[in-house]
């Protein structure tokens, strides 16, 4: 399953809840959720721990818009909008967490 998160984990618990209950799969971070994938953010440890079970992606446009440059945690992949579509196709189901 592809889990799509769009809120920063530092002000909203969607990503935390997703990591708590979701079975292994793909996670795409969009909009403010991309901050979760930055080196040195308070959620970094939890994301790194979850990366053993999940493949984590960030949406490149949202990443760039926030000026995050080379701060991406190693092992997190960036995808463009075409890559986003590919992820929704390669997974049988998507869940957009609110």
């Amino acid at each position, binding site marked *: 399953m592809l889990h799509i998160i769009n809120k920063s984990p530092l002000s909203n618990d969607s990503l935390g809840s997703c990591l708590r*209950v979701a*079975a292994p799969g793909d996670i795409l971070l969009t909009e403010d959720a991309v901050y979760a994938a930055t080196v040195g953010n308070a959620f970094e440890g939890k994301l790194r721990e979850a990366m053993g079970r999940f493949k984590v992606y960030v949406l490149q446009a949202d990443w760039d818009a926030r000026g995050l440059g080379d701060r991406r945690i190693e092992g997190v992949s960036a995808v463009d909008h075409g890559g986003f579509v590919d992820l929704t196709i390669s997974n049988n189901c998507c869940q957009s967490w609110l």
Partner: protein
Amino acid sequence: MSEGAVKKFMFVNRKAPYGTIYALESLEVVLITAAFDQDVSLVFMDDGVYQLKKGQQTKGIETKNFSPTYRALEGYDIEKLYVEKESLEARGLSEDDLLVDVTVLGRAEMGALMNEQDVVLSF
């Protein structure tokens, strides 16, 4: 709409009832979905478990108390109601505090159940 394959729909409710419109919107979508004879599951986790808290009295906030409607779901053949265990415990609640019968699931069981679905809608 009896033709076509039955799909597994899951509604994931994670918001408390009155602070935002999500809980009520979800309930309305669920009731409409019931007309299409699909396999519907409802999940209550995080603050969503507060939607099922017994004893809601909304007169003072001049808002419709829709909590009795959860008890109507059975009549709509929606009988798969799941609550995540840690969310319940984190709020000092137990099954006895809830106004409908639910199945309490641990996080791993919940994750597995989500993965079985054809459509997951989050509220």
